[in-house]
């Protein structure tokens, strides 16, 4: 358990920058690491790596299927390829290539999916990837991490390089609060309890971890004790931790910047009904496409704020006592 307490003023930083910086570190650490991009060097921040290691950087152009296959070929020859594009295209445009060439062969390919979530903002629905968790979870041999901030993304990227087999990393577009620091523990496949609590557990990933911590403060004022779990690795899922939270707190609220069907909420629901059935409320995008707007406007409009988590907590608690 790593207690995270938010200062009044939280530093803001992009998760994808953690990816870009970590790639440079990996470039220094391991000559097998190579990077591919589909005409999005700056958006995915692989340009840092490109500047340091031009020989190990491959521009593929606008051809995500081909990029996925090329990464597979590089991995088959012992390289550790990371390829980067927007999440909408990393997960959907090359899903068959991920399934057959990468996952079925179980190749050591790492996928950087940028611009996940409604907070992508003005680009609108096509560029707001919100289906990746559902798709990647369905494919055997795939792992997936949805880090909550800059530092966790940095660590997740290093961890992905260490983990044998295909790993999908999901980032957002905007500056988001830095809630962890360089020393916050991170282990692939293990959820982190960021705040203890006894009345319910908020299980979150990505930027929603920050909203969960804020929600916890608001609930505390109302005398409600909420545990906060940062479930960065959505596959493989930390079932033991989720079961423990269901048993110990008896109610769960999930929070994700992703479609509600088959995402983090779905993954948690699957564990809960198989282990310790407890009421769950989900804060997520309710099976609708996104739209243009300022990131903050959209987080409000799509109900992805601390207040929405608080409301979900207040819905879930009576359901809990009703069953006690």
């Amino acid at each position, binding site marked *: 358990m790593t207690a995270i307490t938010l200062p009044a003023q939280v530093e803001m930083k992009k998760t994808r920058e953690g990816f870009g910086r970590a790639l440079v570190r990996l470039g220094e650490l391991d000559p097998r690491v190579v990077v591919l991009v589909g*005409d999005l060097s700056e958006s995915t921040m692989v340009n840092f790596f490109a500047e340091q290691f031009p020989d190990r950087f491959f*521009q593929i*152009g606008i*051809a995500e299927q081909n990029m996925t296959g090329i990464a597979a070929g590089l991995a088959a020859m012992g390289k550790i390829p990371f390829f980067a594009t927007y999440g909408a*295209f990393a997960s959907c445009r090359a899903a068959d290539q991920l399934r057959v060439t990468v996952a079925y062969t179980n190749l050591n390919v790492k996928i950087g999916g940028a611009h996940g979530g409604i907070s992508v903002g*003005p680009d609108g*629905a*096509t560029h707001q990837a919100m289906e990746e968790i559902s798709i990647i979870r369905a494919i055997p041999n795939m792992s997936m991490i949805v880090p909550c901030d800059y530092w966790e993304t940095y660590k997740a990227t290093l961890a992905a390089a260490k983990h044998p087999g295909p790993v999908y990393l999901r980032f957002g577009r905007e500056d988001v609060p830095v809630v962890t620091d360089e020393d916050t523990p991170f282990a692939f496949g293990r959820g982190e309890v960021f705040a203890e609590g006894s009345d319910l557990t908020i299980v979150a990933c990505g930027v929603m971890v920050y909203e969960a911590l804020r929600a916890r403060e608001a609930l505390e004022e109302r005398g409600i004790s909420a545990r906060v779990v940062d479930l960065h690795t959505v596959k493989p899922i930390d079932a033991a931790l989720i079961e423990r939270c269901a048993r110990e707190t008896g109610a769960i609220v999930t929070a994700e910047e992703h479609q509600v069907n088959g995402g983090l909420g779905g993954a948690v629901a699957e564990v809960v009904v198989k282990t310790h059935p407890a009421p769950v409320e989900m804060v997520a995008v309710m099976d609708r496409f996104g739209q*243009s*707007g300022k990131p903050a406007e959209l987080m409000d409009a799509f109900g992805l704020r601390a207040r929405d988590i608080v409301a979900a907590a207040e819905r879930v608690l009576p359901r809990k006592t009703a069953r006690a």
Partner: protein
Amino acid sequence: MSPVHTSSDVQPAHAAGRLLWPADRLRAKALDVRRDIVTLLARSQTGHTGGPLSCADFGAALFFHELNVNPADPAWPERDFWHFSIGHVTPVIYSLMAERGYFPLADLMQFRSFAGHLQGHPSHHDTPGIEVSSGSLGQGLSVCCGVALAARLDQHPRRVYCVMGDGEQQEGQIWEAAMFAGHAKLDQLCGIVDCNRKQIDGDVEQVMGIQPLADKWRAFRWNVVVCDGHDVDAVLAAFAAARAHRGQPTVILAQTVMGQGVSFMADDYRWHGKPPKPDQAEHALRELGTSYAEWSARLLADRGDAAAGAGAAPQDDR
């Protein structure tokens, strides 16, 4: 596959929705379109600048001369079908639509805003006249093949226009659709490639070379017309050649310059995806013979009471 009818078998279009403007008026309209693009981007402070500016001239020729459409009735049965597979060039798409009368010019000032109906990428759900949403590259030519196929099935003379990007030519789906259209001899279909030689990460030929592009399209059984995409006379000639060509679809490789029309944007890939800052916009609009104050006022003045610029009704302005 149904027996091949080429459009020569079917009746000529009821062309009441074609404006057939002469080149000089098209040049003037293209200038307005560039002013719209810079102004709406200065307002939104988000969106793509370079590609929209390279599309302005052939875009004006397409909307104000070539297309048979009825902005007052976007579902007008006689209409031609137009589609931008490069969904990111919404500033030029929306400017052309508004100038043509699909919706008020004032709406352009709400580009990419939560309140407005003009999404960052074209959305059928939000914007009247957008028939199929786009924004993920490479998908549009397939859609246009389907539309042309439906027209053939219905013995409808509708023509189908698909605007693509040169970087977009790197997507394999483009070549799947190209193969199909060539095979099916969809001569009601006309592709237009905005060959501005740039994409997000730089020069197309350095990022992922697509040349020899004309040879590729020919090898996929298309009629190829290469023209200066900023010379409206040349573009009109290309459209005429496409219309006259039978038994094959035609692709127009429009040679353009990214950011064309604004000195400090021209031929610079860094303008692909960013909007001009207020001072840059002012500078650009001065080059375009207006100012932000003047042009934004012109846009905001049109709230749809009267049809803007070239009017809405098919009969208008013949």
